[in-house]
């Protein structure tokens, strides 16, 4: 009977008075969405009308407890780097963060759809057993980690609302938030954390495995406490824990199965602010708001990742309003000035902790000679590289480690890289026994990979710079697989690379340590290796700083890699998008999370 009445009334035009009352009720936020829709129907409103009213009210969410989002990571975090959180010598040895308590009772999700462009298909929804660069941002919204890095690479809480490092540095105790649930309704407990960490450590080839290798075992004294027992104190551990390959997965779904083949890898169950809806390969990945999210937010209805591998297409789609935020691929740097001038568009320029550098083959002449490497460093006009190849979005590099992680970058003169001095370069090569007979001293083979368009441009500038001192360069554009092959075999003279150097300078080991995963240059210096090891083991920042400074001084003497420019990444978004993790929500949410993002009217 009620139904019939409802249907009948819905066929007539709703009484304006009733609508006003309805709207007021919505704004007061005293009902769940489902109740409101039911009441709306009884009032005779059609579904689109109800949706419209809800949409116009949803964005403001007046019912969230004021200040609930404000008491996250302490202010100290923004000046001291990630490692401060672990230093036992710092006073309280406790970093307390209160993740936005689940105090808000208002309608979760809200209004608006955020469309984000992504560079490619993601491989799987299990973020922990294999590297998946294209999946990172999607995983970040489906799942949580125990701690997370914010946009400035500070460690802030996520599933773990606080943690304490033992005085001897051999254990860390985490307290998890309460009330966290998986998308299927089951509660998130310490057992899930234990299961996930153990799986990562057991899985050969898991990307997080090496980073977490200091963890000997995991204990769970109760449902919300997790204890890591370490084999040795590890300063970078917390940073790595918040970085990648460490998303907490539901034990009740994965336990007992091969987690590389579990069907949840196609239909994920996470604990994050958004739930999985659908995935069309090559086209889009569709997420919707997790109404029962344990923390503050989300304020969006849906997040859609549009898969656009081509930088130009992505930028065009962004300009035409089809995409709200370009996460990847990076817009062509030459277009960024035009983007910045476009009304309604904002471009955040992020100084990324990465440095473009020219790597030299230490095993092959002529690059095996230090005089040649020094001359190359002096021949390159880094200002021109930044101005022309990077369209001004970069900084001239003078040191080996990125300025962004300020405490570890050695700025002293003896750690500086030889800067542009064309005459000195030519003279040095003459002295080293490479005269310019017939206009050419020697030829360098320079392979680079085409995935990053900046590389091609930088290679062209370097080629012209070297041509000016009569060094011939043969450029070889390869795609990444072939490039890896070639560099591994040592079939090159110089090449170009960059890459994230955070969250901690321990990362340098991969690049310049003997046998490091991306040490394609065959560089090996036992002093450097020792200093890197000592740095990773030490726990106070001053000791670590000394060690990493020593590394950089040695690198300046040996010059296996020649830094060219610091990396800046443009992140364009439309001005009606607020609460991004690098704008208003910086420091409150982790990297790539859209938990606090809102899309307003255009």
């Amino acid at each position, binding site marked *: 009977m009620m139904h019939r009445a409802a249907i009948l009334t819905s066929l007539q035009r709703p009484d304006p008075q009733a609508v006003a009352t309805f709207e007021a009720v919505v704004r007061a936020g005293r009902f769940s969405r489902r109740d409101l829709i039911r009441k709306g129907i009884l009032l005779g409103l059609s579904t689109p009308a109800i949706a419209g009213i809800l949409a116009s009210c949803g964005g403001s969410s007046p019912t969230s407890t004021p200040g609930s989002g404000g008491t996250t990571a302490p202010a100290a975090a923004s000046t001291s780097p990630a490692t401060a959180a672990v230093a036992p010598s710092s006073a309280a040895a406790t970093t307390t963060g209160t993740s936005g308590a689940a105090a808000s009772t208002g309608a979760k999700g809200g209004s608006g759809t955020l469309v984000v462009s992504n560079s490619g298909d993601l*491989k799987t929804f299990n973020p922990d057993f294999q590297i998946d660069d294209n999946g990172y941002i999607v995983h970040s919204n489906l799942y949580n980690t125990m701690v997370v890095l914010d946009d400035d690479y500070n460690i802030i809480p996520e599933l773990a609302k606080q943690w304490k490092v033992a005085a001897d540095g051999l254990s860390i105790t985490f307290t998890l938030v309460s009330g966290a649930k998986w998308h299927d309704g089951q509660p998130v407990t310490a057992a899930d954390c234990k299961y996930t960490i153990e799986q990562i450590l057991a899985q*050969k080839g898991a*990307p997080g495995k090496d980073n977490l290798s200091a963890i000997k075992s995991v204990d769970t004294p109760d449902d919300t406490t997790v204890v890591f027992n370490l084999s040795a104190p590890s300063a970078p551990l917390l940073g790595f824990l918040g970085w990648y390959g460490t998303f907490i997965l539901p034990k009740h779904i994965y336990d007992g199965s091969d987690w*590389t083949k579990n069907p949840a890898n196609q239909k994920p169950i996470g604990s994050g602010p958004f739930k999985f809806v659908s995935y069309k390969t090559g*086209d889009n990945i569709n997420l919707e708001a997790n109404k029962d999210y344990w923390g503050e937010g989300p304020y969006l209805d849906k997040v859609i990742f549009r898969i656009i591998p*081509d930088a130009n297409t992505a930028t*065009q*789609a962004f300009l035409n309003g089809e995409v709200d935020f370009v996460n990847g691929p990076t817009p062509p740097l030459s277009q960024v000035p035009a983007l910045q001038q476009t009304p309604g568009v904002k471009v955040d320029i992020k100084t990324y902790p990465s440095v473009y550098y020219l790597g030299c083959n230490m095993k092959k002449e002529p690059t095996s000679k230090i005089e040649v490497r020094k001359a190359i460093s002096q021949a390159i006009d880094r200002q021109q590289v930044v101005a022309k190849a990077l369209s001004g979005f970069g900084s001239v590099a003078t040191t080996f480690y990125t300025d962004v992680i300020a405490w570890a970058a050695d700025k002293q003169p003896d750690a500086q890289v030889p800067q542009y001095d064309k005459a000195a370069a030519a003279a040095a090569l003459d002295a080293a026994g490479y005269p310019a007979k017939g206009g050419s001293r020697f030829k360098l083979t320079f392979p680079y990979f085409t995935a990053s368009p900046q590389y091609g441009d930088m290679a062209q500038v370097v080629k012209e710079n070297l041509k000016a001192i009569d060094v011939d360069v043969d450029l070889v554009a390869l795609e990444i*697989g072939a490039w890896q092959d070639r560099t591994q075999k040592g079939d090159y003279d110089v090449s170009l690379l960059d890459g994230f150097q955070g969250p901690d300078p321990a990362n340098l080991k991969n690049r310049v340590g003997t046998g490091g995963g991306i040490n394609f240059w065959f560089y090996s210096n036992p002093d450097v290796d020792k200093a890197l090891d000592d740095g990773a083991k030490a726990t106070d920042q001053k000791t670590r700083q000394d060690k990493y400074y020593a590394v950089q001084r040695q690198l300046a003497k040996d010059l296996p890699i020649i830094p060219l420019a610091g990396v800046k990444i443009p992140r364009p978004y439309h001005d009606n998008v607020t609460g991004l993790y690098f704008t208003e929500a910086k420091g409150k949410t982790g990297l790539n999370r859209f938990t606090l993002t809102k899309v307003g009217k255009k």
Partner: protein
Amino acid sequence: MGRYVGRQLLTIIPTILLSVVLNFALLHAAPGDPARIYAGFDTATNDQIAAVRHELGLDKPLPLQFALYVNQILHGNLGESFAYHRPVLPVIFERLPATLLLTITSAIIAVILGALLAAVAARRTFSKVDFGLSFASYTFYAMPSFWLGLILILVFASKLHWFPTSGMHDVRAGYTGYRNVLDVGKHLILPVLTLVLVQTPIYYRITRASVAEQQREDYITTFRATGMSEQRIFRRYALRNALLPTVTVFGLSLGYVITGSALVEIVFGWPGIGRLTLDAVFQRDYPLLLGIYLILAVTVSLAILLTDLVYAVLDPRIRLR
């Protein structure tokens, strides 16, 4: 007739098999180690890479890998994609409709348009229309498809905002039902326009040339001598016979509908097989690539077979050979 078909089918199978061998050998010969790629470029240690290599089955000797693969195919299993960790066939069939929609639509429009325009021009030889159409056909035939696509996007999407720049759906709106059909249609216009503009000249030229040739056949002269009207001669005899080569080329081009639009798919961000294949090449996703090549080999062979059949039906002289 049945024997003719049977004979043709028999010759196709060894060809397909040979191409499988060739593709397999070529892929594995190409430098680039999939294990390293999947282990993660920036961060993998050698242990991790070895683990991944084992998981992908790449540490077995090559002939063994090949034998295993052939065995798999014979059981209807094309293997599992390295990149997606899912069976190859579903991955391919998910993307196939998008490509087929694009290429088949363009091919049909191109052949009809080309033949029509050729018929028009043939009736008015040496007129302005004839020269105009010829000039246009040369120009568009000479255009790189990706360049034309870029220009169309620049003009019609970026400057005039008449059409979307890329993709197949308006993801924000999330239409369903017939509104989805309209949405896809709207997104389809520019890519189809690009392909039609570069393909029509082929059909135009072939039809035009063969119509001209037909016009000079003796039997036409005979008809004229009997006093039949030009119109009737053209429509009933010249045009029909002239269409044979056109049909042939169209049939053969259908064999390439699957990968024939890769560049256009890139320019327009169209989520089809072309892009899937390119990504697979760059990621050394061997099973996926081999699967795509196999399907392609089968499709092309079938298209050739069908075309030969159609031709044999239309031209009895072939059958009797």
